[in-house]
């Protein structure tokens, strides 16, 4: 079996390989039952195995935070994003082009809000 990239420990990897061997012997009904019991398997892409462990920990922190927003959904490649581009199209652009479009959107937003002044209380806390 192919070794998993960025596997946290050899012991862990051996365990996954043992489980995989067992699952390969399942028939389709048993595999479907497995997905019912572990529904998150459907949402995980195979490339996730290449994600470093530290990154996984970091992402878990933010996923916990965003789990509170039930009305929001994760970005998908075909979602509209910026400058008439979809998410996938935007992030496929070279870094300089992404920065240019992002800056352009901000420049427009600066112009729209130009001239507005936020009132400050006399006892406001300065950054000292």
């Amino acid at each position, binding site marked *: 079996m192919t070794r998993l990239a960025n596997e946290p420990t050899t012991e862990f990897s051996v365990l996954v390989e043992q489980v995989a061997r067992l699952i390969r012997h399942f028939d389709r009904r048993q595999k479907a039952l497995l997905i019912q019991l572990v529904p998150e398997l459907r949402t*995980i*892409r195979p*490339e*996730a195995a*290449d*994600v*470093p462990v*530290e*990154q996984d920990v*970091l*992402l878990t*922190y*933010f996923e916990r*935070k*965003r789990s509170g*927003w039930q*009305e*929001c*959904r*994760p*970005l998908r490649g075909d*979602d509209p*994003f*910026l400058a008439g581009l979809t*998410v996938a199209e935007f*992030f496929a652009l070279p870094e300089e082009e*992404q*920065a240019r479009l*992002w*800056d352009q*959107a*901000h*420049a427009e*937003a*600066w112009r*729209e*809000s130009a001239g*507005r*002044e*936020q*009132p*400050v*209380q*006399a*006892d*406001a*806390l*300065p*950054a*000292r």
Partner: protein
Amino acid sequence: MRCLLDKNVARYAIAGLYHGRLRPLSSLEVSVLSCWRVAEERGVALYISLASFHVLQRLAGYAEVRVLLDSAQVLSPTRYHTRWTRRIQETTGLAREDAAMIALATFGGDPQGHILGVHALMTCDQPMIHGYRDRLPQLQRRLRAMAIQLPAPFHQVALPRLATPDEWLADLKEGIA
């Protein structure tokens, strides 16, 4: 401690959250997300500009954007922001938008009017950082000269520290920031 996130930091944060489960992230994406996490754990108040807020608000239906909007407050220009932007531009030669962002870190207020300015501006823009640091003594002199004539609380304004996410992360971990 208060920290303003530059527009590019917001972009790397969203890119990191979007790509995080798909591929190994770039070092910059990891740094931005790590900084964000450590800042929250240390109780650092995070801010975004009003311009960033307007851009992100259009994307607020997406969880990756919403979590950023939920984590940061909005910092808006106060009185004297335009004047200080002009002086930063004259002194550093930076683009108007970069100067406006740095000026926001000094003359920016929250919606309640409770704060004036932030302690740090986190940016991935190296030319902006260098342009600022190269002229820091001159900027300090000009800000002192300007602030001394201003009413409270504007006479107490200070310049922010400009730092990359990596520099900021190092500061946070050492307990400096």
